[in-house]
């Protein structure tokens, strides 16, 4: 700006011969300012009201999803405790399995909010680190002093560990006949419930208000937090973990790793988890949610933000591309079949094609969308040492 001011000054006092040059430079600099990205600078942003966006995300998507997830952990905990009281009752055992599926599906709805309260408790790692280490689980079973939460326990707690205890071969008899094993299952779900409750409570008591109040786009702003977590979780925990690693496309040899699928022991769940994992990304993007009577409400989302930039490449055109790719990705996922651990071995090429559809969203979201919104990608934090 200083330079522009100086040029203007010269323009006023200078001789005619300088005029064209000065005007050209001045126009060029204005043009430069305009074209350097909508939303990059708070002050020159358009009228888009980010506070509305944050309120919609917080009140209609994030907090209800945490409430639902917390309630599901509560139901699973009650079911497991009921089973523990009457360990030979196979009905109780089956109730645990049903509740386990609902809990795992509801987890997919909150996994992407890995910032603030969830990040402070490493909820992603404590809830869903897989493959789970069954040797460590079996070692922990008889250990009265075992406590969950430290890094050494991450690969033997959470939903994957519960999956193993409830769904491995002969699970019912093993649990029925071993009070220690059943007690360990209780410990696992109790820990998950405590963590879910703490994060949900943080959101409703203090963090929600903080979140809504931070309306900028700078590092650490709510939009920055949401979108960095959004991209990180999509890239790493959806695209890579749920499909890329199992198909083998992420490894040098290309060998499928069937043991790396999510909910490996349940057999019938992996594809459903992947399908449900895409939905909250779509919802955050579109801002859509279902109200209490089950009616779809089209709230404010990133799509509205992009559209507000106009009918340009990094505006509504990008929005159309993203929406089309979300549809393609969902369709591709629907072609996968359970058990995914078999499918990635027998239909590796098809599975890799689905992966490519998921990968296309990484480019659109992480590169194009973040660039268009002027939000810095900060989750690859390399300070070089």
């Amino acid at each position, binding site marked *: 700006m200083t330079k522009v001011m100086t040029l203007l000054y010269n323009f006023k006092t200078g001789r005619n011969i300088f005029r064209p040059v000065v005007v050209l430079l001045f126009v060029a600099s204005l043009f430069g300012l305009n074209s350097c990205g909508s939303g990059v600078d708070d002050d020159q942003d358009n009228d888009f009201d980010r506070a509305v966006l944050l309120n919609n995300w917080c009140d209609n998507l994030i907090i209800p999803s945490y409430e639902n997830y917390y309630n599901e952990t509560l139901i699973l905990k009650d079911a497991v405790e009921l089973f523990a009281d009457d360990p030979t009752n196979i009905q109780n055992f089956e109730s645990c399995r049903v509740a386990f599926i609902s809990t795992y599906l509801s987890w997919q709805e909150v996994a992407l909010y890995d910032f603030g309260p969830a990040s402070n408790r*490493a909820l992603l790692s404590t809830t869903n680190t897989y493959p789970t280490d069954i040797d460590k689980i079996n070692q922990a079973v008889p250990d009265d002093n075992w406590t969950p939460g430290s*890094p*050494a326990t991450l690969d033997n707690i959470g939903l994957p560990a519960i999956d193993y205890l409830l769904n491995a071969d002969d699970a019912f008899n093993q649990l029925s006949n071993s009070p220690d094993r059943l007690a360990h299952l209780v410990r696992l779900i109790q820990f998950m419930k405590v963590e879910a409750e703490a994060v949900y409570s943080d959101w409703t008591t203090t963090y929600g208000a903080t979140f809504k109040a931070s309306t900028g786009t700078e590092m650490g702003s709510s939009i920055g937090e949401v979108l960095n977590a959004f991209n990180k979780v999509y890239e790493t925990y959806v695209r890579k973990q749920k499909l890329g690693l199992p198909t083998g496309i992420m490894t040098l040899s290309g060998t499928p790793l069937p043991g790396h699928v999510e909910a490996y022991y349940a057999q019938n769940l992996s594809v459903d988890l992947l399908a449900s994992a895409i939905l909250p990304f779509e919802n955050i993007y579109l801002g859509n949610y279902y109200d209490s009577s089950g009616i779809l409400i089209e709230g404010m989302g990133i799509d509205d933000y992009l559209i507000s930039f106009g009918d340009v490449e990094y505006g509504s055109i990008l929005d159309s591309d993203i929406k089309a790719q979300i549809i393609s990705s969902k369709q591709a996922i629907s072609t996968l079949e359970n058990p995914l651990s078999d499918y990635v071995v027998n239909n590796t090429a098809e599975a890799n094609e689905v992966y490519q559809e998921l990968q296309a969203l990484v480019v659109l979201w992480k590169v194009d969308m973040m660039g268009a919104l002027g939000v810095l990608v900060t989750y690859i934090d390399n300070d070089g040492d």
Partner: protein
Amino acid sequence: MSNKAQILTIIFGLSLVFITSCNRDSEGCTDSLATNYDTNADDDDGSCEYDIITPDEYVYEDADGNSTVSYSGQHIRLNMLSEMVTVMKTANTEGTVVDGNTLISMYGHDGYTWDDVENLDMNSPDNTKQLRNKTAGGDPTIIAQFETWMTELGDASTLTSSQTGSAGVAGVVVSTSNPSKQYLQNAEGQEWTQLIEKGLMGACFYYNISSVYLAPAKMDVDNSEAVDPANGKYYTTMEHHWDEAYGYFTTAPDYPVNGTDRFWGKYADGREDPLGSATKIVEAFRLGRAAISADIMAVRDQQITIINQEMEKMAGGTAIHYLNDAIDSFGDDALRNHTLSEAKAFIMALPYGAETSVDFNKSEEILALLGEDYYNVTTANILAARDELATILGLTQYADEL
């Protein structure tokens, strides 16, 4: 139209307002060096103003145009630590053995031949500079701690071809989220390279800045004549001590344009957002040095206070930054252990400040919240340490953001 110098007017504190006082002293500025010196005042009210020319870079000359700045000894020591870090980091590759005795010979500048990439004559017999005898004033316990770590690093490096680091096992640990990152860590996940590098930034560099060169023993010295103009020493003793403090912070005269690549210059730059560390510290160094040349000690002393306060916030803020990183990569053994090791070393550095609010006991207390075993730490432990540190340093509002 702008030149290399600008005039800064320093206004000393805002006056203590008129406390209803019984005596009838006339209040005003009582310093005859001030531009608003009030000959009638006999009670200084803190309103003194001074005109001091502060350069945009750390460049100072005497009346004849001779440079009065010299921190060549600090430059050599920073380069020594850089070379040590380079050698230590080779041990992050499996099967690469680092000799602990080599590290110790580097540390004490005792029989080691330096690469000396900047040609500072580091291998000359005249170069008697070393890091070891400048560590915590030569405290043998502290020095022994560093040498123990060097020996342990060397010993562990001999095992890395056959064993991988994990809980209870020393070795190279590879990041699961970014396999290009891997570090040699002990059985509890602590990383010697970080403890040594950042540890010496504290016990050697920070200690010498704050508790040696900017402390009264090195500041209450002659400021009236050049030390030895015939041999190119155009600086006064006081000016030289100030320069030595600066040289331990950064060796770049144009910092933060340059000098943000290593040690305190790097981490101050890293904390520029949100603490403004680099700007505040370097401006205090430049203004304080100009005040010494203008022989205005009140301004110098104010800059010493700023440097001490901002260095502490920056070091503590860096520890908080790494504790946050550790939570972010909690499930990744290599990265979590790496960042916790960095945080530990910065927390250990805090007591070396002259006006610290984190003494050695407090530093130990905070580290105890983390525990020694980084494979057994919880997010609650890390947050407890972080929040305790933030509270003590008045950084609570930045705790999440750092």
